[in-house]
């Protein structure tokens, strides 16, 4: 088990190294640099001379060789320093510390919600196959899988404004500062995102449960005289959870990076919005470090999924 985890960890490190190279090169290959974006910010109201542009480029360190820029970045990472934004020079760690909790809160709440809704519906749909319950749940599942989360988010915001004269907070309010406002801010995105993942979870749970319901060990359990509820809970559910864990884990990884469209729809200043803003501004340092952060999060989540797999299915650890 320890060797297995160590292998997975080392593989993750190699992946992260690849991520740093990819994002670093991508930023330099894509047209436009931070300075081009800064000078275009005024929409051409102000035009800098070539000398002024060169001086500004030099001040930002953009005229250094690429290998030196990459080396400095890696050195900073090793020292635990995520650097500063090219725009306005605010520390990137501050950005992450301030916005990360909001994004994480939304992601965790969405995944929890997806389990609370998706797993029971999936099981119910499977055990009551081809009944009205199954039909309704399947229609709902298809609806929420098909409906884009941002559209649902817009509908929620629109309904909130027009019917309840309410919209979530536009500025970051941490849970420990003002729990009520914080929940108002994160609940909407969490529900919208959670419903989409819940639909997928329900679908996965249903198909996995249906498959397992026909397995020999389930028949044996029933033959032993176990009550159906116990059969489902002890024997079916645990086995059906493997694909569900995979889906939820991937969803969590994605959401921890911030769901840009939903954040934008709700106007929530999370990490996704920060990344989009940084891309628009070609703020390389912010982009590089946020992408690296997502890489770390994904690696960690994948590692966790592997551990959970091993816990749910001991055979995995020996493979």
């Amino acid at each position, binding site marked *: 088990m320890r060797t297995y985890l160590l292998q997975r960890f080392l593989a993750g490190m190699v992946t992260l190294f690849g991520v740093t190279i990819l994002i670093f090169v991508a930023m330099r290959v894509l*047209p*436009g640099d931070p300075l*081009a*974006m800064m*000078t*275009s*910010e005024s*929409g*051409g*109201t*102000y*035009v*800098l001379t070539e000398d*002024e542009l060169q*001086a*500004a480029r030099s001040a930002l360190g953009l005229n250094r060789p690429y290998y030196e820029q990459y080396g400095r970045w890696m050195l900073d990472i090793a020292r635990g320093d995520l650097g500063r934004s090219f*725009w*306005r*020079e605010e520390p990137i760690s501050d*950005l992450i510390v*301030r*916005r990360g909790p909001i994004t994480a809160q939304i992601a965790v709440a969405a995944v929890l919600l997806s389990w609370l809704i998706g797993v029971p519906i999936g099981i119910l749909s499977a*055990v*009551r*196959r*081809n*009944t*009205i*319950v199954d*039909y*309704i749940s399947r*229609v*709902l599942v298809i609806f929420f899988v098909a409906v884009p989360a941002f559209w649902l988010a817009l*509908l929620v*915001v*629109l*309904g*909130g*404004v*027009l019917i309840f*004269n*309410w*919209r979530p*907070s*536009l*500025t*970051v309010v941490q849970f420990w500062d003002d729990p009520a406002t914080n929940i108002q801010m994160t609940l909407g995105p969490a529900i919208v995102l959670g419903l989409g993942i819940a639909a997928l979870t329900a679908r996965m749970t249903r198909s996995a449960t*249906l498959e397992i*319901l*026909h397995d020999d060990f389930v*028949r044996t359990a029933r033959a032993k005289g176990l009550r*159906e509820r116990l059969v489902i809970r002890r024997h079916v559910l645990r086995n059906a959870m493997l694909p569900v864990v995979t889906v939820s884990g991937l969803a969590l990884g994605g959401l921890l990076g911030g769901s840009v469209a939903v954040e*934008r729809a709700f*106007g929530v*200043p999370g990490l996704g*919005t920060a990344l989009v*803003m940084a891309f*628009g*501004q*070609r703020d390389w340092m912010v982009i590089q470090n946020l992408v690296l952060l997502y890489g770390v999060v994904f690696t960690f989540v994948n590692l966790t999924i592997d551990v959970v797999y091993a816990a749910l299915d001991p055979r995995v650890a020996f493979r």
Partner: protein
Amino acid sequence: MQRSSPASRVSRRRFLRTVPLMVGGPAVLLGVACRQQAPTGEVKPPAAGAPAPTSGAGAAPAATTAPAAKSPAVAPPAAAAPPTAAPPQLVATTTTSGAAAGSAAATGMMRPTDGTPKRGGTLRIAGGTTTSPHFDLHQGATVHPLTHAYNNLVRKDLTDGLRTLIPDLAARWETSADNLSHTFHLRDGVKFHDGTPFTADDVVASFNRILSPPAGVASVLRSQLDMVERVEAVDPRTARFVLKHPSLIFMEVLSQPAMVVYSKKAIDENGGDLRKAVAPGTGAFMFKDYKAGEKWTYVRNPEYWDKELPYVDTLEMIDTPQLSDRGTAVLTGQADMTWNGSVDTWKEGQQRKDQITVAQIPNFGAHTAHLNNERGPLGDKRVRRAIHLAVSRQNIFKAYENQEPIFLGRWMSYASPGSPTLDEIGKLPGYRADKSADIAEAKKLMAEAGHPNGFGPIELLSATAPWAAEIMAPVFADELQRTLGIQTKIRLIERGLLIEEYKKGSFDILVETQFACPIADYTIAWNDYLKTGGSKNWSRYSSKEFDALLENLNNESDPAKQKALFQQGMDHLDQEVPFIITGFTAHSPMWRNNVKGLVLDKRVYVEWGRAETAWLDRA
């Protein structure tokens, strides 16, 4: 084994009965939402110089009730009620002393006229506040989040809708008989937020930095002060500007929000570069905090030189890049005001008169289609004139009506002092709604130029931003194809990268918002965009005749003669058509009815920024 009881089975008929219910529920919800969002009011062009259409308690009766509109929601200016007043003379006469008028306004003491101000509270403004790459206003930082901390020498009066030029840090000023020397007598007892006393040295240091920036400082305001020969301190309380030639726009330029006075101490301590931190100012509010992508916070300056101001204790600017978020923030009370909401939220605000007041204010920015005068058929002025005549501005306005209100403009905003009225513009060839005669004339010109059946495809460059890529570019391309047979191939690139394309001239047609002026007088914009070799002459237009006219305009000191030169220039440009102005924008501010003191409904043009006269009318 699948277990199911006969009782729980659902018949095909029963199932089919449930489907419409499940599908219908969300559809009804959507329908309700869409119905509520549908435009219900009419948007009229904001009248320059006259109170803009408003709603809400306290607004003028004539403006509170928008006429019932059938369609379109944004009425084309030619069809809508035209402004009844001629554009105001926004440039106050600079040859008189600011103190001469003797009123509170004349001494720069702005006092709200919309009630008895109450003190306290937090004014929350929703707007795009994080686009600024740094904090130095003289180097191009975004103005409106920063300007609260500073003062200019002179400014426009917030309490009369920006109609009057009033003293700010200058208590009064004098202008010499030859209009070449402007002497500013500075206020006593003014201190920067760090306690440093304000003197004439600060004025000299600030404007010298603009005129002769140290190495590494990008002085983006220098071209606006081209007329200034030198700035000098006569004594600690007096500063003098000596001009190279008389200028009608000098005082107007000094009043534009970015022309703030920094402290010499801050400039010296930072090696002349104030990009990295918010430098202390003399303004009514002191900078407290800034969270990128979230908000700016300012607090009341207890030592402000005008002891009456400001009224609110705290000023928060919430970063809301999307217009719809700004509007919904005001509708739901998360913000007290926004300088510019989306069309749909603005209309919703217009309906909620008991809570919200709205207005529309003319802006000095325009949507343009720059025609590369050095490439292919567009180098022929007959072709350019044909495009000017054939393209229907009214069709473009209609296509854009749910995005942002835009209106006619003849080489300058219709809120500019030299502009004809909207009504007058709407009768001119090229601008008028009835295109039959214009298109016939345009086809004749195309035939004379050797393109009776059009030409193409030529490249039409546009930003990827939805308003450009999905509306302006395709609509303009369609106008060209439909009326003149000019075929275009649209190329989209990220907006931030467009500036390199402008500089290189690597386009045939460029759809953008590239004709803006920092002040109401378009002399600056004409020099930048239309002069041979001008810093923003993206169309590469060159005319000796027009350059000579500009020279006269730059040196003119008689407002009447200036107006005649503007008229002559507009006539010339309508014939030569360096580029196409598709429409001038208007902004759509919204505010809660308890926000007083800014009289946004009376503003003659858009100016985002200072708000020291604002007060909150709380029960």
